[in-house]
């Protein structure tokens, strides 16, 4: 080699190594996430923001639903109690519920001691002579009724029946049935537990630890309770160590076989999807590298060429991850998964270099002169296409865009500037001209297929027109990486718990807890009217458990002074079969309640009502929000406009009726439209670039036509197979255009008829792209699968269409 280029080569290689090192350092400090919210849209309005944060961090995100199946009901219940006992001592769990009355005593004491502050029935009228008379005769009737058994002991202290009022209010809603002292599913086949973790649902590591703790408690309980071993269960074989000595050991495994533990919940979903994404990404990248390496080895028949060929790929992948890390602060697992597919495209550049270079150790400078401008243009069109993704409202999509741009630039640059210096003297790969010649002959005849292609294209257009209404999937759930089986399990456990999905909410916001609680009380009055009219089955409100200070004061002020109450009571009992003396404890209690300190949020601690207030009353810095979930009457859906009208009639500001499902679907379809516009923008940018380079609309049309045809055909194919398009299909189509533009540009090269060698290089490049993206089609993460099923057939079609619609060569 000549000395000057050699020195330059050393500089280039040194620069490249420094770059790789820098990328390595950035990546080693990077944070990797699998937080699903990266693929949820950024929310535009504060209320929607609040809802999204609720999904991520709210109480609902901290719930884990547990089901225990197997053996008989009493064994399951016993297991449930043992697990609960163990986990209640674990600080990672705020509460562990399985129906055992652990806080029932505290709850009742709290309600009873604060009944005059909590009961909505406490008004001045209730403590008038008439009011007392009515309340007393009511209580006496209740005493004589079958429920009298329960209220008898309360009568002397609570003759107006406030406690009954409160219990009645709190006991609405369905709860799981009890079997042997623990919750059981409706069909009785499962024991049920509901746990609340201390860590938020988006803290995936903490959720994973919580799941592990539940699993350990389950294994321990199973192994430590030999009496719970049901009949028909495989007993440890003779010579086995006693299972009691092996908590979580093999004995437990044998016993665990009799019981089945299932868990679900938002936190569980993030843990399982992280595991899925992790295992998918690592498996996909291993298979994809192996597949492409095998393919290249078959073509090159040279290990040196194989290793050199992967250098741009590795550089590109590292550059992509480093760029995303620098640009976004964290790298999403999906981006990595996508990156494995991009291996298939990045490897193309080195294929072009090796295959297109003249055989026999020709100077790579010749290839650079002849082919680099075309490849550079291909890279540029890809970058223009992906640049549109950078503007996306989905942080995940923007990551994919940045990753692709950085990765492709790095891979192409390394191929162009570094790889030629690394090629050893006498570098040669297996002669592929034979394949090239075959392809050449095929391409010669490809033009004959124009009519067939035109018909296919027409058919595709017809399909698209027919399916135009159902082409897009505008449900946000389509992006969820959670499997259908997991969703079904979640739905069945939820139904067992009697906890339907919260779909309708009234959100009240304000500057202080007090103002939000006051507004909630006014909204509650409106909602109660709707319940009375049968429009709603019920609703929840934080003010039910924690009334506003103003309301508490008003209730306190309704209580008459002791002397007044005594006189009124004496009059009120007239005509009733009771004596006023019986109610001395009532007089004392009311007197105490008049000067009782008002109820604070901290008074709820240690009761099960704390969880409700925690879930329904949210503080963000100086902003407070109350959530009032609504329950629809059975079999009927809520008439949203009616509720909205009733709410707006109150004239309260900052009260929002939210239909979570419509809201999030609308949010998503808004972003779908955004991505459609962005993709079209990308297309326009590519056309603009080509126009600027070629300055010939006809030529640009010839380049774009096969790509458009490929996009139309793939979309029609997806429609025929019943795949509704989600945002990631669109990204896939963008990739088809990006990858396919290389083929179209090669076929379009004006200087010479397309050489057999170029054809061969394109076929190999196509095969690696199909291998890389095709693998994604087998992923069970819907986001990755969508890209796979779009790109793999799309790039094949792009190549074929390019060949068919290529200018007639004169060879």
């Amino acid at each position: 080699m000549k000395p000057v280029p050699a020195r330059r080569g050393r500089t280039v290689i040194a620069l490249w190594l420094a770059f790789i090192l820098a990328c390595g350092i950035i990546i080693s400090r990077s944070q990797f996430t699998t937080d699903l919210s990266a693929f949820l849209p950024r929310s535009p309005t504060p209320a929607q923001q609040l809802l999204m944060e609720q999904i991520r961090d709210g109480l609902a995100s901290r719930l884990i639903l547990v089901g225990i199946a197997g053996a008989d009901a009493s064994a399951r219940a016993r297991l449930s109690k043992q697990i609960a006992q163990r986990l209640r001592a674990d600080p990672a769990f705020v509460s562990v519920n399985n129906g055992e009355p652990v806080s029932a005593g505290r709850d009742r004491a709290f309600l009873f001691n604060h009944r005059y502050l909590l009961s909505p029935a406490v008004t001045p009228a209730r403590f008038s002579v008439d009011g007392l008379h009515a309340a007393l005769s009511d209580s006496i009737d209740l005493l004589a009724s079958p429920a009298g058994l329960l209220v008898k002991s309360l009568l002397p202290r609570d003759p107006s029946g406030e406690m009954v009022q409160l219990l009645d209010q709190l006991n609405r809603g369905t709860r799981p049935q009890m079997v042997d002292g623990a919750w059981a599913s409706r069909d009785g086949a499962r024991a049920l537990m509901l746990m609340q973790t201390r860590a938020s649902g988006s803290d995936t590591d903490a959720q994973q630890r919580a799941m592990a703790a539940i699993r350990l408690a389950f294994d321990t309980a199973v192994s430590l309770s030999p009496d719970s071993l049901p009949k028909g269960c495989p007993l440890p074989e003779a010579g086995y160590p006693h299972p009691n000595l092996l908590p979580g050991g093999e004995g437990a495994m044998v016993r665990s076989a009799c019981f089945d533990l299932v868990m679900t919940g938002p936190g569980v979903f993030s843990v399982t999807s992280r595991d899925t994404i992790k295992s998918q990404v690592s498996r996909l990248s291993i298979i994809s590298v192996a597949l492409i390496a095998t393919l290249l080895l078959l073509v090159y028949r040279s290990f040196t060429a194989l290793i050199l060929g992967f250098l741009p790929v590795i550089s590109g992948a590292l550059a992509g991850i480093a760029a995303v890390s620098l640009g976004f602060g964290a790298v999403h697992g999906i981006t990595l998964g996508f990156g494995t597919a991009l291996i298939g495209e990045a490897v193309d550049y080195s294929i072009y270099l090796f295959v297109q270079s003249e055989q026999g150790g020709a100077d790579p400078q010749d290839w650079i002169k002849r082919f680099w401008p075309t490849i550079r243009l291909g890279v540029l069109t890809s970058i223009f296409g992906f640049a549109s993704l950078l503007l996306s409202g989905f942080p995940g999509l923007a990551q994919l865009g940045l990753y692709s741009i950085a990765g492709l630039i790095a891979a192409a640059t390394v191929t162009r500037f570094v790889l030629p210096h690394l090629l050893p003297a006498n570098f040669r790969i297996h002669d592929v001209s034979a394949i090239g010649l075959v392809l050449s002959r095929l391409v010669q005849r490809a033009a004959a297929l124009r009519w067939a292609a035109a018909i296919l294209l027409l058919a595709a257009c017809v399909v698209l027109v027919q399916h135009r209404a159902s082409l897009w999937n505008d449900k946000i759930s389509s992006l969820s990486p959670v499997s259908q089986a997991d969703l079904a399990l979640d739905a069945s456990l939820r139904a067992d718990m009697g906890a339907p999905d919260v779909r309708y909410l009234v959100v009240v916001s304000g500057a202080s807890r007090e103002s939000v609680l006051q507004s909630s009380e006014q909204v509650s009055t409106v909602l109660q009217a709707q319940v009375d009219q049968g429009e709603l089955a019920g609703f929840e409100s934080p003010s039910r458990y924690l009334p506003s200070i103003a309301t508490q004061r008003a209730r306190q002020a309704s209580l008459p002074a002791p002397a007044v109450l005594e006189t009124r009571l004496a009059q009120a009992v007239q005509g009733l079969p009771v004596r006023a003396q019986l109610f001395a404890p009532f007089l004392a209690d009311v007197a105490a309640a008049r000067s009782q300190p008002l109820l604070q949020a901290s008074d709820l601690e240690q009761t099960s009502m704390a969880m409700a207030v925690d879930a329904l009353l949210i503080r963000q810095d100086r902003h407070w929000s109350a959530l009032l979930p609504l329950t629809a009457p059975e079999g009927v859906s809520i008439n949203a406009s009616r509720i909205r009208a009733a709410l707006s009639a109150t004239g309260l500001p900052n009260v929002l009726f939210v239909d979570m499902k419509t809201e999030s679907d609308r949010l998503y379809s808004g972003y779908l439209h955004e991505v459609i516009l962005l993709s079209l923008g990308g297309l326009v940018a590519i056309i603009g670039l080509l126009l600027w380079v070629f300055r010939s609309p006809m030529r640009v049309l010839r380049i774009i036509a096969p790509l458009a045809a490929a996009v139309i055909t793939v979309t029609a194919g997806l429609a025929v197979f019943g795949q509704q398009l989600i945002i990631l299909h669109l990204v896939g189509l963008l990739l088809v255009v990006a990858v396919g533009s290389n083929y179209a540009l090669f076929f379009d090269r004006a200087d010479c008829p397309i050489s057999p060698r170029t054809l061969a290089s394109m076929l190999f490049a196509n095969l690696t792209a199909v291998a890389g993206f095709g693998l994604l089609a087998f992923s069970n993460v819907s986001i990755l699968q969508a890209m796979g099923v779009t790109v793999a057939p799309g790039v094949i079609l792009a190549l074929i269409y390019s060949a068919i619609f290529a200018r007639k060569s004169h060879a």
Partner: protein
Amino acid sequence: MMTPPALIFSLRALPRILVALALLPAIGHAADWDIDQLMRGLAQTRSGRASFVEKKSIAMLDKPVESSGELFYSAPDHLEKRTLKPKAESMTVDAGTLVIERGRQKHRLQLQDYPELAAFIDSIRGTLAGDRKALERNYRLSLDGTAERWTLQLLPLDEKMQAVVKRIRIAGARDAVRSIEITQADGDSSLMLVEKLSTP
């Protein structure tokens, strides 16, 4: 010391005599009448309608409360008590849910939250259904009388329940319940007389 043979003989005979004595009351009963048979008979009634008159004596109240109305039962777990006098109210139990309606008020209780109330309701429901197993979960049963005039006594097993209910006595003729008498632990009591009505 020598043991007189006669004494040995009588000691050996003692168990046999004791067994014979123990059998005497059983012989005194109608030999073909026991709880299982009563339960079988009761279980044959799949649904029924009856009128009732109930008198409750409650210490807190100056005079006993009298009420009357109708009872409906359909197997296995639906029980309805519709009081017409002195004030209309109704109590409906369906599986694990108790609904009490009084005027415009409607209380819905989950029986699992009130084990004492649940045990109490199950004593009546279990008897009507002829479900011995369900009854024996909460009560010790004893039967007196004949098929023509029987009295089933239920004594609560659970301590908590004992603190509320002392005893429940259900009397009847053949497979029809005639009266339910409940004595509470604090001395309050109620007696409900039941008259079977023809099913419409």
